[in-house]
């Protein structure tokens, strides 16, 4: 009988691996690709050095007034001087510790959720989600248990942006999931209700929603009954964004094979357990990019509250640039705003990528 001898493994050609290989395949694979690479390098050379010159080398870093902005570059003194206002808006200076404490509590409270070995994580997470908003409201707004009231009209800056974004996200996600389930329900009444809701809110611009909530709604409410402007804006944002989340989640639900529903049903799991234990964990994992996309859009859309006179980060900066004492600081202000928005949005994007990798169980469909 003959025995087949297998050939030994050999190393790959030098030019196909390592830095050289990477450069060859990615940057210089053809003459057209080489041309593009050179053009891109030229563009970078055109843009980056002047930017560094303006933002760092020729910039003013120390001082207290407009008079200290002497060089040709950026004047970061403006940002330094108005930093408090950009972060807290008109929140009373002596009470800003309450905002800081709220943020620290969020960081410390959420930290255990990121420890893999933590026991009873789901239960802890649920408690945190219930307890933290109440605590945050008490700290930020006050008015009971010995804390003085800070009306929402004095909230502003990054703090207000974060409040709108986080309440919007925390409210819109669960509502959106319920709407998505409702839209795929077997019961016609529920389905029609959900479709109507989703199509209504998706068909209206957010600006209109905010405007309606702040200007029109009070006209319809009976005399004497009014509730907080921020509250109305928050409800508007939640309802608006939940319609988008619902459609994203529905996409995920439709991507789950029928066999998964059947297997869950055949085991005797009822509707809610089937959805909660089998379908939604898979569907939500599939649509993480879409959900985070919506969250990022939501975070940036918070700046639209300018239309109803709330002073979020962008509006605070806009306000400060119109100050006669700081004339001509608009560029610095908006660059700073862009940087803050970018940091948060990029953070969300990176976290979603991490989450996708972590939840990947090697099942490719």
């Amino acid at each position, binding site marked *: 009988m003959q025995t087949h001898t297998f050939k030994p493994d050999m190393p790959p050609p030098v030019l196909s691996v390592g830095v050289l290989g990477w450069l060859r395949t990615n940057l210089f694979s053809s003459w057209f690709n080489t041309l593009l690479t050179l053009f891109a390098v030229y563009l970078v050379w055109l843009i980056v050095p002047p930017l560094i010159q303006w933002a760092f080398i020729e910039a003013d870093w120390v001082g207290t007034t407009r008079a200290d902005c002497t060089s040709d570059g950026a004047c970061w003194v403006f940002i330094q001087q108005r930093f408090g206002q950009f972060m807290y808006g008109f929140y009373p200076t002596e009470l800003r510790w309450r905002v800081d404490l709220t943020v620290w509590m969020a960081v410390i409270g959420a930290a255990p959720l990121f420890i893999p070995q933590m026991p009873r994580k789901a239960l802890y997470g649920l408690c945190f989600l219930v307890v933290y908003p109440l605590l945050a409201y008490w700290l930020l707004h006050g008015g009971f248990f010995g804390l003085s009231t800070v009306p929402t009209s004095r909230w502003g800056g990054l703090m207000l942006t974060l409040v709108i974004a986080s309440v919007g996200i925390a409210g819109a996600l669960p509502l959106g999931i319920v709407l998505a389930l409702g839209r795929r329900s077997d019961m016609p009444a529920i389905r029609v209700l959900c479709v109507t809701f989703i199509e209504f809110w998706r068909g209206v611009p957010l600006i209109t929603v905010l405007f309606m909530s702040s200007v029109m709604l009070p006209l319809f409410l009976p005399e004497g009954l009014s509730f907080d402007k921020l509250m109305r804006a928050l409800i508007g944002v939640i309802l608006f964004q939940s319609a988008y989340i619902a459609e994203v989640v529905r996409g995920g639900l439709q991507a789950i094979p029928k066999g998964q529903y059947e297997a869950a049903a055949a*085991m005797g799991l009822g509707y809610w357990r089937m959805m909660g234990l089998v379908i939604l964990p898979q569907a939500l994992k599939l649509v993480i990019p879409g959900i985070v996309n919506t969250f990022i859009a939501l975070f940036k859309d918070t700046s639209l509250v300018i239309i109803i006179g709330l002073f979020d980060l962008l509006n605070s900066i806009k306000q400060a640039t119109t100050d006669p004492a700081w004339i001509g600081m608009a560029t610095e202000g908006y660059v700073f705003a862009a940087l803050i928005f970018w940091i948060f949005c990029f953070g969300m994007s990176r976290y979603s990528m991490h989450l996708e990798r972590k939840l990947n169980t090697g*099942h490719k469909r």
Partner: protein
Amino acid sequence: MSEAIKQSISAEPGIIQMDGVHKWYGEFHVLKDLNLNVQQGERIVLCGPSGSGKSTAIRCLNRLEEHQQGRIVIDGTELTHDLKHIEAVRREVGMVFQHFNLFPHLTVLQNCTLAPMWVRKMPKREAEEVAMHYLERVRIPEQALKYPGQLSGGQQQRVAIARALCMKPKIMLFDEPTSALDPEMVKEVLDTMVSLAEDGMTMLCVTHEMGFARTVANRVIFLDKGEIVEEADPDTFFTNPKNERTQLFLSQILH
């Protein structure tokens, strides 16, 4: 008429009863007047050409498909629109699918403990013990902490069998359990099913594995165009089929 059939007809109502079951998909009449009485511990093999309604028939037994006429009674509970009845039946009836349908986001062990914990309200530790017992039964306890996506098709199907067994069902339904497998993996799944049959489980299998039918089945039922064309014990069925449609079918698959 063979002993097995005489027995099942004369005996009192069995654990599965289908009386005059009809089903339509829109205008298409899929199941026509199905009558079946299965005693506890019986092993039935359903076969037939594709589109004959054999999968639909078996899926009606745990209401994954709804029949529109006739009665289906499983272990004393009639399948109606009542959700309570449907869930009660599903608790006692395990099902294994052609495409396994394991939950890809859960480990093998979690796949097996899910239903016992949430439907039977079994404590986690006990559910895990039961799961490990059945995973040993299908000879893959070492894969318990892996995800389904990391297993071969044959292993996945054995996990699916273990998962169904963890609910300690009275009846097991198999819907073409080996059709999606590579040829070299068919045997490991069939062996598992044979050992299950030897333990006296009531089984209904839709399958084209005629070797399995021959060794395990008490009765082989041949369906075509939604009707039971022939019903016999395996010996009679394979060596002396009465109906010409059955003969044609057998000549096409046994070669």
